[in-house]
């Protein structure tokens, strides 16, 4: 019945992703949208051509934002649940709940933070439309590279652990990840398309709000999915002094 366990984890992952997406949506609406609006005001004040509005601003900042963030949450929730099914019992001596939070933290770093530090989120009016192809390729390449390097670092840590102990194996794996990411940063081309007069404080606040959205998404996902996975895999609650249920694969 292991296949059913994977299915149950996947369903819970997508639901937890939806809930975490809702949390991130609140953060995006309250912290992010004011910055998007200000950036668009800047764009309109400095642009000579006026584009026709396909979707109104009021829809983009509400229903459109909700669609994007919630679908993003569900999609990454599903992918994280599948990664979790694989990581469970394979990464170290962690309970289901701890494994979920650990995986979620790694996902935040590998999927978002590492690509963000090289190619950070940009508000409207930052970015030349002619280079969208190059920027998209580089961003997804950096994301893919970062995830692969994180997996490689995990495998390296697992390989070193029997000889060096868990502590030093983890330290060396993290250091190797840092060096590899640094090399990628050094060799991939830099992108700077911020207009000269774009307010620096607005750019900073926009990027901070983008980070806050991801932190709430992955933090919320790790805690919620961990709880759901713990209840699925260890159904009986802990009683004082009592034995804990053996994880049942059902």
């Amino acid at each position, binding site marked *: 019945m*292991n*296949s059913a366990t*994977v*299915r149950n984890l996947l369903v819970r992952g997508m639901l937890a992703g939806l809930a975490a997406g809702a949390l991130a949506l609140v953060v*995006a609406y309250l912290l*992010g*949208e004011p910055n*998007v609006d200000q950036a668009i005001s800047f764009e309109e004040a400095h642009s000579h051509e006026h584009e026709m509005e*396909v*979707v109104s601003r009021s*829809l*983009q900042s509400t229903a*459109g*934002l909700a*669609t*994007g*963030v919630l*679908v*993003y949450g569900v*999609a*990454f929730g599903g*992918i994280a649940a*599948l990664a979790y*099914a*694989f990581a*469970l*019992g*394979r990464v170290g001596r*962690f*309970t289901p709940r701890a494994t979920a939070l650990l995986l979620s933290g790694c996902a935040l770093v590998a999927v*978002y933070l590492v690509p*963000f530090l090289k*190619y950070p*989120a*940009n*508000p*409207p009016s930052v*970015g030349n439309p002619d280079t*969208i*192809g190059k*920027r*998209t*390729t580089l*961003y*997804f390449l950096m994301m893919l590279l970062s995830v692969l390097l994180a997996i490689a670092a995990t495998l390296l840590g697992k390989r070193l652990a029997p000889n060096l102990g868990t502590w030093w194996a983890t330290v060396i794996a993290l250091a190797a990840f840092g060096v590899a990411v640094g090399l990628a940063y050094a060799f991939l081309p830099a992108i700077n398309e911020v207009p000269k007069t774009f307010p620096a404080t607005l750019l900073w606040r926009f990027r901070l*709000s*983008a980070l806050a*959205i*991801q932190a709430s998404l992955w933090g919320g996902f790790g805690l919620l999915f961990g709880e759901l996975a713990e209840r699925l*895999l*260890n159904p009986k609650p802990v009683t*004082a*002094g*009592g*034995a*804990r*249920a*053996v*994880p049942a*694969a059902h």
Partner: protein
Amino acid sequence: MAQTVAQPTATTPALPAKLPLKAIAPWAVFFGILMLVLLYFVGAEQGATSVFNGTGVHEWVHDARHLLGFPCH
């Protein structure tokens, strides 16, 4: 010192069993691809590449794309 004697049953957490790869693979392939397609439509459709004509999808998820860190336009 009144240190408590180790109580293995209470202090050793139940560690999860590994799920066999054969059980994960079909779900991972099918749903993994489905989830990546969803991410593509939120993050990149009608930017560098287009499946559908026009700019409707791009404009609809415009704010999410900026705030989630994807290159937008």
